[in-house]
């Protein structure tokens, strides 16, 4: 059916090809020509650098990776409420765990005139161009919960110390083993988080710094022998993938053994591990966690999951807004706790200290958190 119009159009082929050549030649000339043209002064684009300050009711963008875990959903609510309270216009969005969407989201925030953007990156290395565009437009950029790597377009990062978090997880696992499983040696397995998240290897490193000496002296035994982060990692923090991995480890190694403990990088994976062990007819092992999710607190209260590491989202959000307010007034932000090289520059890091929660101290930790406290009745 396409052949009907070719009679007239075949002769245009040569002309079109010729025209194409012309375009190509012209554009190569263009690329060769440099200098002159517009300069930044012409239209005054890209106002304010450091120390400029901005309007008290300015737009502040918050780009979160997704809302699939409770801590991110909480962050969304807290940012929306507290930015409003602080007088800013809040623009809080989440990107469904897709990097291109987060890039476009950040660019859209710049278009909407955001003066500061808080970024909880999906992949801390993949936002370079979007953040550069934001920086060029004079926007202040704060990394939230995860390091932003490979770019100079980041002013500060607010996070819980991730190595420290891992140490707490590892220590809690050992404490739990001693408390629940009597004398060693203990059979354990190791799980890591999503490898694209720069925190995940840090959690694992922190935990291994506590566990490795015990592995070396034979107190704990990793029966499957999978002790590298790459082997233990859980792609995309996907609970389902963790559960499948646990299923196959149990089937392959524990037909005649009892599993005593599992290192888990977060609460969702902890629950997947417990489900898998129960399904395989094992006793509930000692499992740590992270994020103090509702279901896990219930599970801890019931005596299944042993512990979780609580990173109060409230504190993290409050610290972030404190820094934004300092930027807004044009003041120096509070002093950073440390700096970390992100591959391009040394980024000021505001590191908060997380809290281990077990059945014993749960009521104490959540004393001023009515939602979670309500889970601890009965």
């Amino acid at each position, binding site marked *: 059916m396409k052949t009907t119009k070719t009679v007239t159009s075949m002769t245009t082929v040569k002309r079109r090809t010729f025209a194409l050549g012309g375009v190509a030649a012209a554009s190569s000339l263009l690329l060769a020509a440099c200098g002159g043209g517009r300069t930044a002064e012409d239209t005054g684009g890209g106002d304010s650098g450091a120390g400029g300050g901005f309007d008290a009711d300015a737009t502040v963008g918050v780009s979160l990776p997704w*809302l699939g875990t409770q801590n991110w959903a909480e962050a969304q609510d807290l940012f929306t409420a507290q930015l409003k309270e602080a007088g800013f216009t809040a623009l809080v969005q989440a990107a469904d765990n897709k990097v291109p969407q987060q890039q476009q989201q950040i660019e859209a925030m710049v278009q909407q005139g955001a003066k500061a953007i808080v970024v909880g990156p999906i992949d801390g290395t993949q936002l370079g161009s979007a953040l550069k565009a934001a920086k060029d437009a004079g926007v202040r950029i704060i990394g939230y919960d995860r390091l932003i790597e490979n770019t100079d377009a980041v002013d500060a990062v607010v996070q819980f110390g991730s190595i420290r978090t891992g140490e707490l997880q590892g220590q809690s696992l050992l404490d739990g083993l001693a408390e629940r499983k009597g004398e060693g040696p203990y059979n354990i397995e190791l799980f890591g988080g999503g490898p694209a998240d720069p925190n995940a290897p840090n959690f694992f490193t922190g935990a291994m710094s506590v566990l490795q000496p015990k592995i070396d002296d034979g107190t704990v035994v990793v029966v499957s022998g999978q002790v590298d982060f790459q082997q233990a990692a859980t792609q995309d923090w996907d609970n389902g993938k963790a559960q499948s991995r646990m299923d196959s480890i149990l089937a392959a190694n524990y037909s005649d053994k009892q599993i005593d403990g599992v290192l888990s990088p977060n609460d969702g994976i902890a629950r997947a591990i417990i489900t898998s062990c129960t399904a395989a007819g094992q006793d509930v092992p000692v499992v740590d966690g992270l994020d103090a999710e509702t279901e896990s607190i219930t599970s801890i209260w019931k005596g299944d999951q042993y512990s979780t590491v609580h990173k109060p989202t409230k504190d993290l959000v409050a610290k972030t807004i404190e820094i934004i307010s300092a930027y807004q007034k044009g003041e120096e932000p509070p002093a950073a706790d440390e700096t970390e090289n992100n591959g391009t520059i040394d980024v000021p890091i505001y590191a908060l200290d997380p809290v281990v929660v077990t059945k014993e101290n749960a009521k104490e930790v959540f004393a001023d958190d009515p939602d979670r406290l309500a889970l601890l009745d009965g």
Partner: protein
Amino acid sequence: MNAVKQVFGTDFRQFTMVFALVALLLGFHLASGGKMLTPGNMQNLIAGNAYVLILAIGMVMVIVIGHIDLSVGSVAGFVGMCVALSARDLHFPWWAALLAGLVIGALIGCWHGFWLAKIGIPGFITTLAGMMLFRGGVIWISGSVSVPVPPELNVLGAGYLPEWGPAWTYLNNSTLLLGILAIALYAWSQISTYRRRVADGESGLNFTAVIIRVVLVGAVLAYVTFLFGSGRPGTSFPVPGLILVALVIIYHVITQRTTFGRHIYAVGGNKQAAALSGVSVNRVYFLVMMNMSFLAALAGILFVARATSAGPSDGNMWELDAIAAVFIGGAAVSGGIGTVTATMIGGLVMATLNSGLFLMGVGQDKTQVIKGLVLLAAVAFDVYNKQQGRPSISGRLFGDRTKSESTTEPVQIAPTTPGATGQ
């Protein structure tokens, strides 16, 4: 007769999608308080979606031959990672890494083409296998860790054309020159086509209509030039957009004006008839699949260049974005129908929806719902149009105007002309 009808349908549909696109742009512009049609936002829209649109160019050809390629996202991710790793670990210079990536893409395409054309495994299965194969591959070779790409590549994914010449234009002069070139080329091609037809003794041609068409399209191009050229100094029509436009022109010519292009449609329309007329079906299959993976490689490279690093989950679900663009652009699931330019319009409709909903601050949940409904509506509209024994919407609205237009008018690169041709 049916085929002719289908051509009218596609053509008409292409115009309706252009109207839909313009309506969306204007609607979002008003609803967002003037934030949609700004230089910065349009630059972002093009640069941020170039990779999907490039995938869609290849995908429409695959769908026209009656197959589908599910592997493009994985292939794009795999090639992006190969480029990053070859530069970091094998110390390739950036251009060698880039070339290596394109070669790997073409080789992967040969692999798919081999299984489809030589062994006869359906494209769906071949590429489903490829999707798993290369997704596993990218995780394997990267060790699940993101790898930075050479900074020189950044210009491909997020670069702008240089500023030069006089500042009094208040525009990026590179963009201005390209715009002027585009308008001149369009006017020249329209007028010379008209002259040739007159010389061929064709009757019933209307020179006024040609002029009006040139003026209208010229005005649109001038506006686009202004829009992209008047951004922050240092910005212009984005480099990935330029690559995209070049590809669209090249593939438009290949599919609409060459023997190979006619073979693609012939094979997709009726494989047996095409084979009996002497078209090598297997050769067409092989080349189209190879081309798809080559374009996927290019898309993957543009993406990692923009992201500044290659990640293990790059390319996840991109195949579905590309496929959606193709079907919104009016391609038929059964093959044989679909054009590169209409697919670009389909892809831009999706991109505009994405961008507009971001600007309005609509959440991802609702964005997905809206995009799903738009896809369904676009295809339903198409199916309704084509149902037999019922006057089509195009017939009702345009009467015989559509007919005269479609017979005199080959598919346009910038199909914004129904008003002009209706004169």
